[in-house]
């Protein structure tokens, strides 16, 4: 038998922690492991029991025994494996736990297949699930198309802006049906307002995006550029076509852009780079910084602000955790019958998650608005070391 990987051991350990009365050796054998398409860090599972489902695409997490009359059932529909979904799931179970809600999450991977999706819906009805979490944009899209009139309330999580995706008409009103949407994106107005606070006379905005990442193009980059231009700015897309050659492509396109910016803005007081949620782009933050010179590089993705110099100077966006917390709060309100899903307007985070790297800020001579500093969840000091993480001073 092959030795267990570190991750598998952690999973087993986490599940075992739920069974304090059992001998250690037995616990390791008895507790099932997560299937390959989902995972939660063991430290978040102290009070949870994992059980396998009827097939390899289904499992359940419960924080109360089946005999508990207060236990409710919630179905979570996932389209595939994603580290973002893992973070969201961990945050949601943590939030339910803190609020003392006895719950069993029935996790079903529908692999973006219709028959599997319908099966998940039937199972939700059969097991009297009180709510469905639609995890990720694909699950949200499928449920919205196939089950918009479901009787079971749906809360979306880790999904892109439903207004830009034409699922909702606006941000001000609820869906009117049994769907409560949340958004992984900040509204464009808010994004631009924050950027203008940093650069009040903002003019040149270069939006870096992976053209192969359709959802990032459609829900982030293109609408952002259009909004900026409608406000009289000179915003434009800088796209790479081959993610695997991102570094080379960026090295080719960035220098002429910076030269162009310098011609209209010699001090770079009215220019910036804006990185959208494309992994291939933000993995090349070092390359971008090298070519951007003193032009501030900011991101909509909090993960791009990191220790050291290979970091965006600041990020203003929504983390998966924050979005999941909002979705959990929506779900708890719906389950508590304090509100109807269709009455909830699109859940957008406010204030956004802000991360600041003062090493980069000093290198490019950028002054940070004090308000942003006070709001920032992650702060890296002038040596590039983390001094505040998740809002807590280290």
């Amino acid at each position, binding site marked *: 038998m092959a030795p267990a990987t570190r991750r598998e051991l952690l999973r087993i350990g986490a599940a075992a922690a739920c069974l304090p009365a059992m001998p250690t050796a037995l616990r390791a054998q008895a507790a099932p492991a997560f299937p390959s398409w989902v995972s939660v860090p063991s430290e978040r599972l102290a009070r949870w029991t994992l059980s396998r489902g009827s097939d390899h695409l289904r499992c359940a997490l419960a924080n109360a025994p089946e005999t508990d009359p207060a236990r409710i059932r919630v179905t979570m529909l996932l389209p595939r494996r994603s580290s973002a979904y893992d973070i969201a799931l961990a*945050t949601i179970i943590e*939030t339910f736990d*803190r609020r003392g809600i006895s719950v069993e999450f029935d996790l079903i991977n529908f692999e973006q297949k219709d028959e599997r999706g319908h099966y998940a819906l039937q199972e939700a009805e059969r097991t009297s699930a009180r709510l469905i979490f639609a995890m990720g944009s694909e699950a949200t899209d499928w449920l919205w198309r196939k089950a918009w009139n479901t009787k079971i309330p749906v809360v979306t999580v880790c999904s892109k802006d439903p207004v830009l995706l034409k699922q909702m008409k606006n941000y001000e009103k609820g869906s009117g049906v049994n769907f409560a949407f949340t958004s992984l994106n900040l509204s464009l107005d808010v994004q631009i307002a924050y950027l203008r*606070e940093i650069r009040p006379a903002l003019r040149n905005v270069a939006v870096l995006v992976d053209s192969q990442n359709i959802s990032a193009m459609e829900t982030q980059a293109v609408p952002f550029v259009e909004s900026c231009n409608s406000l009289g700015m000179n915003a434009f897309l800088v796209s790479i076509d081959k993610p695997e050659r991102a570094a080379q492509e960026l090295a080719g396109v960035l220098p002429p852009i910076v030269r162009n910016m310098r011609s209209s803005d010699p001090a770079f007081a009215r220019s910036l780079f804006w990185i959208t949620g494309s992994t291939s782009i933000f993995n090349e933050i070092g390359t971008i910084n090298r070519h951007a010179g003193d032009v501030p590089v900011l991101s909509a993705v909090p993960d791009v602000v990191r220790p050291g110099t290979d970091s965006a100077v600041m990020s203003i966006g929504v983390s998966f*955790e*924050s979005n999941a*917390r*909002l979705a959990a*709060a929506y779900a708890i309100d719906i389950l508590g019958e304090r509100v109807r899903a269709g009455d909830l307007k699109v*859940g957008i*985070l*406010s*204030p956004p998650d802000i991360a600041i790297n*003062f090493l980069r*800020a*000093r290198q490019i001579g950028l*002054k*940070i*608005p*004090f*308000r942003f*500093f*006070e*709001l920032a*969840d992650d*702060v890296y*000091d*002038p*040596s590039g070391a983390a*001094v*505040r993480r*998740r*809002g*807590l*001073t280290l």
Partner: protein
Amino acid sequence: MISQASTAWRGSLRLFLMIFFICCGSLLLLVYVGYGEVQRTYPKFVVGKLVAQAQIIRAPLESHLRAGLPIEQFPGFRQFGERIRTSDPSIHSIFVSTRVGDVAFEVGAPGAPALRSLTEQETAPFLTQRDESWLQVFLPLHDRFSTVGALGVTVSRAEIEKALWARFALLLPLSLAIALVCALAVVWIDRRDRSGRWTATLFAAAFLVIAALVLHTLVSIYSEGAQAKARALSNSLRERFEPVFAFALTLEDFEGLTQVFEQYRQLDPDIRTISLNENGIVRLNLDPAMVGKPWRADEGSYEFSSALGGEKKLTVSVILPMDAVIAAVSRSAKNFLALFLGVALISMLFLKLSRTLTRSQDADASENLLTRLTPVFFIAVFVESLSAGFLPQLITAAAQEQGLSAAAASLTFSAYFISFLLTVLPGPQLVDRFGERGLMVAGAALACASMLVMAAPFGFEAMVFARALSGAGQACLLIGTQSYILTHAAAGQRTRGASIIVFGFNGGLVAGASIGSLLVNSIGPSGVFLTGAAVIAVNLLLVLALLPPVAVRTAGAGLMQALASVARNFCETARSYDFWRTLAFVGAPSKAVLTGVVGYLMPLTLARMAFVPEDIGQLIMLYPLGVLAATPWAARRADGGGSSDSILFAGMCVSGLSMLLVGAATLLRTLAPDLLPPDTLAIGAGLVLLGLGHGLINAPVITHVANSDAGRRLGATQVASLYRLLERMGHALGPALAGQLLVLTGFGLEAVSLAGAITLVLGLLFAAIRPRVQEAT
């Protein structure tokens, strides 16, 4: 000889006791009003301080909540809380309340009440909650999605009041000592100089000494409050800047720092400036022009500085102007001035009474009676005027509580005057039947009952009934006083007797409005009515003790004969064009303005303009001061052969213009806010002018009707009596008409302008429509 000495000693003792009690009452009332003022104003300083202190904890707490962590897991609450409590022992407790009302953390003593409603404060920067025991400030706590709880800071009101009272308690023995010295000095002087001119001087000096001490106490309390607030604000700023230096950052890493200062000023507009200084040089300041200059706090301001971390010697200084303290103290000074006027009038009366009682054998009986009569009538009006600053608002609120329109409240005022009129009508018969003293006792009893009903929470209908009772009671007191004057005053004392009515009415209004509107702040409307009931009960005893009983004249004419007489006189005057012109264009309208505009419309509209009861009472008080100032001059002019026609016309013009001024002040100020004086000044000037205008009318109008052809036919007394009766129609109609004007103008001061315009038109009609020459001559 021994008997004479004994009588002199008894007289001196009586004078001493009278002066001592009057001085004591006045000075203690002064201290009480000062204490009431500080109780009302000081909490504002406390609230500002508590908000700043709460902000020290809120910043890290919200940072924790935004990270998605539960309130209960916030580390360091105890350290933060204890640090604040150590620096300010007046804080009873600091606690965090969750959305469902559970207390997540608490430092200090338990027992503070929870926040009553979190919903209310979700959009507010902070909320204050107070009851009899506690004063609390709550700051809402937000995570990224919602309001999750509140941070409360509690101080004990009892502790605050104990500390404040400790400062005022020192003034009590001092007041008693000064009253004792004053009384002894008056007695000593009285034995040498019986003119009494030193009494008023001594009384004024004693009053001023205590007033100065009270003001000094107020200044020192408010100064300490302002300094404590500045210190809390400065500490709060220091806590917010601390992470900058903890993370090895410098101020150069940031922009928008002055926005933080602006936030503080938005929360507390009293802040003059906030400055961040490095080695004594201004680095950041709310005034950008100060940056780079050496730091120097303004003179006449309160400064508190906190040292920040970092290598450079950085300090953050908060400057609060003394203006806030001066404004609070000047309001007290204004209140004291009003109180001084009120108390001085009362004291004058009783000092004079004490002299009369002391030397009763020296004075003639008529003089003696008039001196005894004056305080009795004065107190009756005084009690009635105690509620002048707040009665319309109180009645309107009661009417609205029962689903009636605000204008319905005017019915209550009309009920008073109708009842008054119906009692005055058979006045002579009532005197004949019950005698002057009996009628006055009945009047005082009715007024007392009215006050008791008003003090009880019986609702709107009971208020109408109480006002009707009060109208009848006041009428009985007036009839009794008039009859005493007519029956017992010597021929040469009649004019002086009439002045008792004028002085009693206007002086009573001044004293009542000023004292009542100050008392209502501390004891509430019910307390004022109960005080009024007690005072009028004392007045009843004074009637029995001071006024001689008069034999009841049962043989007088009956009511029917009296009504027949009124009807006969009415017919007789029907042909007197001048009589009716004067009544319709001058007499009745000016009385309608008195009851409708001064007594009803002004307090209501001023309250809607956010004037507090004390200010309303003091503004209303200006009206009788104007009347008192103009009456002697107008009476002399009218008696001295001046044209009463022109005096009355001038009175109508002045009163009409004064009301236009009051109404137009708001409008003009909106158009040119920097050029015109504040509303208060314009309204105050308008009311003084209105009083002057009515002062020009009140006495000359009687002379005028007496000199009309009706007067010549019926006799001056008969026509004056009939005129006074008919004039009261104006009294009764005034509130109802004013109510209509209020509805017409949407309850604005424009209603006063409209009344002014109507008055001017009536004045012009009075001047334009002159009687035929033969009638006039």
